[in-house]
């Protein structure tokens, strides 16, 4: 697959995962949304906070789909295009 195809697949998957976090479909994930996942994921609250802080690039307390997708791409070993 081409770079663009991979990018599209990653974005689609990231969107699906983002929607798991953004249950209210606000368009962003807050720390409160993240803490709700403690019942569903095998992570401790402080680990979820750590994940949130590392994905929240601009540190504004809101995790956007773009930030989430970038973090997901990084997890997959992809570098974001300059």
């Amino acid at each position, binding site marked *: 697959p081409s770079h663009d195809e991979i990018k599209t697949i990653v974005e689609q*998957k990231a969107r*699906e*995962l983002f929607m*798991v*976090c953004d249950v209210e479909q606000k368009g962003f994930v807050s720390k409160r949304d993240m803490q709700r996942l403690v019942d*569903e*994921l*095998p*992570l401790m609250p402080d*680990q*979820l906070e*750590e*994940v949130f802080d*590392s*994905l929240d690039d601009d540190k504004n307390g809101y995790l956007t789909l773009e930030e989430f997708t970038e*973090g*997901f791409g*990084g*997890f997959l070993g992809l570098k974001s295009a300059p």
Partner: protein
Amino acid sequence: DPGKPGSANEGVLANFFNSLLSKKSVNSPAP
């Protein structure tokens, strides 16, 4: 290197995304 930003929590991030992926695949009905 715990002092280097982004490197200390790579394992936690990987755990987070892996868990989300498993959860998503469990919850998603087959097409």
